């Protein structure tokens, strides 16, 4: 789980109940980076929307759980920006389904995002690390 404690700085005590960070509360850039990362680590033909959410949940050990309804705005924005490509599949006996795969632009964006987030968390933990221990 991706947990973070909220220290009481004045008393230097750990809270009894550590709070879980909800993925819905993270910024949109973070959602996009996570989706791009799951697609980068998946098969070349990509994932269906529902599978993407399940993969993300599994990879994060259940910590990052997307409501599927909130996933579509992120997917459609990424598709519109050309970072992922949506492809419709029409298999016999099955409903038409849309599958998403990573584009070259998406791969570049993911590399930029990874560097940016690493830099951000380096500084973040440099500030709160001492207090959190």
């Amino acid at each position, binding site marked *: 789980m991706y947990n973070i404690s909220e220290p009481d700085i004045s008393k230097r005590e750990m809270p009894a109940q550590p709070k879980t960070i909800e993925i819905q509360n993270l910024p949109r850039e973070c959602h996009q980076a996570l989706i791009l990362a799951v697609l980068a680590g998946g098969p070349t033909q990509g994932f*269906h*929307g*529902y*599978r993407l*959410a*399940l993969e993300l949940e599994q990879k994060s050990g259940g910590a990052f759980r997307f*409501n*599927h*309804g*909130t996933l*579509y*705005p992120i997917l*459609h*924005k990424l598709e*519109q920006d050309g970072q992922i490509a949506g492809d*419709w599949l*029409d298999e016999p006996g*099955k*409903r*038409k*389904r*849309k599958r998403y795969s990573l584009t070259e632009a998406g791969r570049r964006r993911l590399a930029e995002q990874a560097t940016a987030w690493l830099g951000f968390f380096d500084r973040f933990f440099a500030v709160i690390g001492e207090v959190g221990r």
Partner: protein
Amino acid sequence: MNRFAGVLKEVNRTLDLPQPTRSRILLEMAGDLEDLYRHHLSEGLDEAEAARRAEEAFVASEEALRRLARIHEKGGDWADRLTRQLRTLWEKALLVLWLVAVILLVGKAATEERLFLVRSPFVWPLMILAVAVLALGVWKLYQLFVKKRLDVRRLRSGLSGLLFLAAASLMVSACGFLYHLRWYAFQTFEGAPETVFRMFGTWTLAISSMAIIGLLTAVLAAMVWFVLANLIAGIENREADALLAN
């Protein structure tokens, strides 16, 4: 009957988007809902519980749906807005009449000898574009009505080509106009005064034939695109209607 009609109806009600875009979103959600339901079944849940969990996972907040609508509003679903499916018989009849008139005009222009009395070299690329428009239009109609290929996503994939051909036709005409204008200006500048009227006549004949073919090709391409886009939107809407039926 669709077991997830309730969720999809709610999305359909809340999403403020043109019907073709909304239908595509509903189709995508329906596919994912069904897959998630099957995934839960494979985990050993009974049908009712699997359906409940799948529905629960897909309940989108109004805010998420508003964001989705904003993305499609900003993101160039202008084509869908333009091709809101024609509803009444009158609208359809008018469109067919208009298309037939444009095709007849193009045919008449292309076979009229006087039009090519002074032939601009730009007429040839325009003729090629017109043939490409007709070929693409006929191919799509063949897929729709003869082969009965109802995979609308693939049918839709070539449609933007028609708009590209329309734009290309206008571009070629504009380039041709400037080329001939420049030619006329040089000839007038260098030529004797008595030849000016003849040159003007040559110039106007060349650019008028080119402009007629260029504009008709552009109108034809836009019309064929409009008709096909409406036919395909109709299929998508019927698919979405089937999903929403209880």
